């Protein structure tokens, strides 16, 4: 890497720029859109020259959507709050259940352990709608439909397998003798788990938690079917911008910027952990 000719360096730079441009352009364009009115967005040919306005953001934060025909209320800030609550809640529950389970699967090869672990993973294979239709009927019967608890429960289908499988790999990378050395020095099983296994698997747990958070945040279909407006996250809430008087592109763009901001910030902050978590064991600390 250190011995590249200037030509190689140049080509490398161009290639990297092209890749970054390709992936960043939609986000860049969305940010531009969010600062324009519907009229400037829809003019033809499109132009990057416009007078920036924060009307879209103001409309979303105050909850008053002014189209050129009528004024209507939107609950986008509530949706944002719902997203945070649902994602954070599901990740917390999934970590609480998944990390000890991952430890058990990594350390104790009991009869049928592989089958159970695989079954948990297989929840991710099923098309969500196949699960959701019968589930919505049950949820209505037992009173879980349109509740945060019910949604967080269903979100475990996304979060739990992810955390279980990533964290398990991390636990398997820790030599059992490391825990043995701690236990033989007079410490219980539980304190060994807390003082040795958990800190050493820390990066993996953080990565798994982050990924699970992002997956939960981006989920659309579960909340669409199982929750009504006041419990819906941003992904579903964005539908409100498709109004009778047309699609409010400016506000949608502003809403998108606001809704990707938390996950983007998280991802940037913990980039290293994410890469490690995704390459699962290929990178060892």
């Amino acid at each position, binding site marked *: 890497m250190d011995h590249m000719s200037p030509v190689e360096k140049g080509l490398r730079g161009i290639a990297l720029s092209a890749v970054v441009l390709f992936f960043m352009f939609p986000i860049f364009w969305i940010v531009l859109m969010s600062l324009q009115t519907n009229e400037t967005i829809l003019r033809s040919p499109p132009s990057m020259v416009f007078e920036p306005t924060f009307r879209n953001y103001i409309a979303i934060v105050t909850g008053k959507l002014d189209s050129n025909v009528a004024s209507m209320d939107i609950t986008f800030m509530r949706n944002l709050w719902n997203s945070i609550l649902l994602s954070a809640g599901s990740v917390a529950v999934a970590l609480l259940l998944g990390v000890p389970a991952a430890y058990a699967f990594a350390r104790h090869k009991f009869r049928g352990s592989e089958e159970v672990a695989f079954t948990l993973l297989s929840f991710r294979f099923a098309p969500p709608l196949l699960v959701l239709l019968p589930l919505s009927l049950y949820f209505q019967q037992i009173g879980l439909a349109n509740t945060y608890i019910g949604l967080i429960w269903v979100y475990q289908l996304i979060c739990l397998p992810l955390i279980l499988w990533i964290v398990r790999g991390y636990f398997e990378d820790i*030599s*059992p*003798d*490391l825990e*043995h*050395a*701690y*236990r*033989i*020095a*007079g*410490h*219980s*099983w539980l304190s060994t788990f807390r003082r*040795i296994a958990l*800190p*050493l698997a820390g990066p993996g747990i953080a990565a798994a938690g982050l990924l699970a958070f992002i997956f939960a945040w981006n989920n659309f279909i579960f909340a669409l079917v199982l929750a009504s407006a006041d419990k819906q996250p941003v992904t579903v809430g964005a539908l409100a911008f498709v109004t009778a008087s047309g699609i409010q592109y400016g506000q949608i763009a502003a809403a998108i910027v606001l809704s990707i901001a938390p996950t983007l910030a998280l991802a940037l902050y913990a980039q290293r952990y994410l890469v490690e978590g995704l390459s699962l064991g290929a990178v060892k*600390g």
Partner: protein
Amino acid sequence: MSKAMLNLQAVDKFYNPGSVHEVHAVQGLDMAVAEGEIVALLGSSGCGKTSTLRMIAGFEEVSKGSIQLAGRDIHRLAPAKRNVAMAFEGYSLYPPLTVQENIAFALKSQSLAKDAVARQVAEIAQLLEIEEVLERYPSSISGGQQQRVSLGRALIRSADLHLLDEPMGQLEPQLRALLRGRIKHFIKERGLTAILVTHDQTEANALADRIAVMEEGVLQQFDTPANLKNRPANLFTGAFIGEPPMNVFDAEVRSEAGRLVFGLGGGVTLDYAENEFSLALRAALLKKPQVTIGVRPHAVRITDEGAKAEITANQWLGDQTHIAARFAGGAIVSVEHDRTRYAKGETIGVALASEDLHVFDTRSGMAISHGGALA
């Protein structure tokens, strides 16, 4: 010998019990270790020595049998409750802690004053020559240093029993020789009881008061290093202990005109005056005409007389010579202290004294006699 500190009674270990992959790793092991004794478990890999150690530590379940330590039944206790210290083969140092903290960590449960801990760590670091790396992290020191840290972490604890799994495998020869002496002195001075697992005979001989030789999960012999060498209980220990290994030949025994004659392969015979063997032994040998005889290479004397052998190799190893020769339909190895001039193809005479002869039952492998007297 003082009272037994550790007592293993009829201990069995099965892996994957009930499945087609069932392995009977340790079979009916009985062993008593006295207080203050150093015992080595010696054997090739897969012989069950590490399984035994891990059962004593509590990381493997005892399938059958019982283990007592300091008068308590420990085989059902959690590792934390057994009062055992262990140095692991894979070192198992805590990565986020410095070497100093790793060693001091072992003293945590003893709740000592800070300066007492520091003093003990300094002492053990000096003993193991790791003073310079005390402030470093395990990932930044060499394998040999990590191994010494792991050893220090085990030795610093006051426990009923210290288990050392291949404690010096990664060390350079000079350092190993130096540390062997120091560690033995340290253990003896404090009256610690220790079991070490090793596949290195030199290490076992140098450190241990008694050596347990294991093979295929079965304890072959549990005795002092001298007895293992001079009075091997069976053919396996005879051939396993000693470097180069014992020369072994099948023989037929007969009595001829007041002499005891061993007929080896290739028409070679060894004959001795009958009175070189005890009466009881002669009777036993003549009842069992098919035996296996063994002679240590150090006891093979090259003379002008004696049975003829043809040199096949003459190797000077820097401090001794190994001479291999074709003899009695097989091969014989002799060790000389000096360089020798024998050339390949040369014919020599081989003399085997009756007092150096080990006789084994060919079928069972059990020893019949060592040097003219019944085993």
